């Protein structure tokens, strides 16, 4: 089992330009199975761009993305899905007029007679999966998710990703909009997903939370990785130093001129 040594999901030397803006300047990233890898960095550091590349939403200009050590190309989100990578976006990407089961199975409906969907079965499986994950939905499974609270909607989005992810689950600021209790629930959910052996990628601005939850922390600044820490190696102060550019433990931090 040297699986832990080969990253479940990795990116090396990613470059992405938006006009004159270089969002990624040789960014690298690694996430391992059974671990929570936190990705931190200030606004504009390139976290979102990196994540979008990993999820297949956008394509990097240069660089390599690897799944289980094999180079892959992610030309659209469906490719990422095929590689067992699921993403929980900050805006959740739920169809708010549909119910939880319809959202969980959206685009992957269980079919009857080829053209019809089997909503009963989808609802049953959704309920089973939610209960496995400890997601208690107070509301009936029949109501549209627009009538759910923010935390419940977040739970639906995470449960959907957890249900389909075979390898990696990427979460973009999953607790940013939540209250204390809901945040705690989401963090428990993350632990549950991690204990299933998935690689969890967590993007967060909440540094104490990151130190608490993450097995590994990768810090981005100006479109590149500037620091890596293992659990217990870092405190909030040093993390802030890394985020702000005062600290780096990366050998070859690109200064902006390095190209892939």
């Amino acid at each position, binding site marked *: 089992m040297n699986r832990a040594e080969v990253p479940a999901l990795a990116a090396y030397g990613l470059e992405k330009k938006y006009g004159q803006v270089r969002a990624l300047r040789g960014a690298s990233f690694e996430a391992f199975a059974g671990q929570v890898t936190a990705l931190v960095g200030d606004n504009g550091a390139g976290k979102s761009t990196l994540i979008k590349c990993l999820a297949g939403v956008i394509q990097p200009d240069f660089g390599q993305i690897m799944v289980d050590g094999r180079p892959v190309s992610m030309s659209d989100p469906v490719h990422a899905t095929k590689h067992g990578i699921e993403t929980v976006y900050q805006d959740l990407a739920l169809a708010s007029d*549909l119910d939880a089961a*319809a959202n969980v199975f*959206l685009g992957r409906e269980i079919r009857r007679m080829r053209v019809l969907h089997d909503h009963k079965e989808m609802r049953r499986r959704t309920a089973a999966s939610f209960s496995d994950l400890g997601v208690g939905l107070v509301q009936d499974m029949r109501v549209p998710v627009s009538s759910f609270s923010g935390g419940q909607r977040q739970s639906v989005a995470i449960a959907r990703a957890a249900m389909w992810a075979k390898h990696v689950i990427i979460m973009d600021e999953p607790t940013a909009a939540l209250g204390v209790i809901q945040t705690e629930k989401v963090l428990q959910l993350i632990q549950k997903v991690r204990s299933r052996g998935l690689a969890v990628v967590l993007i967060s601005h909440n540094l104490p939370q990151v130190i608490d939850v993450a097995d590994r922390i990768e810090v981005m600044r100006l479109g590149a990785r500037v620091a890596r820490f293992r659990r217990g190696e870092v405190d909030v102060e040093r993390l802030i130093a890394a985020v702000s550019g005062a600290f780096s433990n990366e050998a070859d931090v690109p200064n902006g001129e390095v190209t892939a």
Partner: protein
Amino acid sequence: MNTMRTARRGAPPAPSAPPSRSLISVVKDLLGQTSGLTFVALVVMIIYFSLMEPGKFNTTSNFDLLAQNVSILIVLSVGATFVIATSGIDLSIPAAVVLGEVFATKALGWFTVGEGTAVDVTESETKFSYIAVALLAALAAGLIIGTVNGLVVAYMRVPPLLATLGTLGSGLGAANLMQDGSNTATSALAPVTSGEAVPGISNIVLIAIIVVALGWVAVRYSVFGRHTLAIGSNEEAARRVGIKVERHLVKVYVLAGLASAFGGFLSVSFFGTTSLAGHMTDNMQAITAVALGGTSVFGGVATMLGTLIGACIPSLLKNGFVIMGVGAYWQDVAIGFVLVLTVWFDQMRRKARTKH
């Protein structure tokens, strides 16, 4: 809560559910799909007119006439429901209807019968092949209009309002050019809508019922319908789960075009003539029917039974007013108000939901 969850995992809790309850839940389910208010309004109107004009309004022949009058509108509205569910709109309905009529009669002209063509045959002389070819020709018109609409909306990103306004003008212009501005009368297609394949129900009404039933299944139970609602609800979310949003939108507009052109085919059959200038407000009527029925003009929510009811209300109101001797134009005034109220309610409901 745990018990609640486990209860849902298996089969639905069957015990202690008397048979009558399932009937009630079915009715509730059916009502839940329509804007309840609209259904109540329909029932109230029927009761009111029946009480006010007994023996005039509530007669079989009047109801049959009403049903025949709204049948074509219902067919158009079924197609429009899908478009509106994507938060789009189809103003090109009259063009697709009229082109459907023109294509159908042109196709009849391909058959030489005696001195003339199949256009001139009587109802008893017509053949299945004439009707089949005319139908295919009509549907081809719908396919063209729908495909153009879909491509322009989905790939060229022109707002549906303007994209379909464009095809409305071009389509009507093309129809007039093909006809040189005059209409063609024909009895060849009459057997489609006249007569009663099922005793007691006019064919045209039966066809409308079948179309609504198909639309109902498509919205409620098909993957196509679900993806349509998902796109109307959150296009980006649909795209991220791998739904081919652009391709799906083209399909939706094609479906609407086909429904409209089929309506044109029915119209030639029923009225025995093309009607170049007779469908100008069909788009407004269909949109009104869909919105009154409870399909959200903001997308994401659709109800086919609502559309059915929404299509009936204006005709019923007009019919009732005429029988009561109230000026028929009051119907237009009333429907205008009710339409705005309906959409306003929908807006409020959405705002209330997204507060938390």
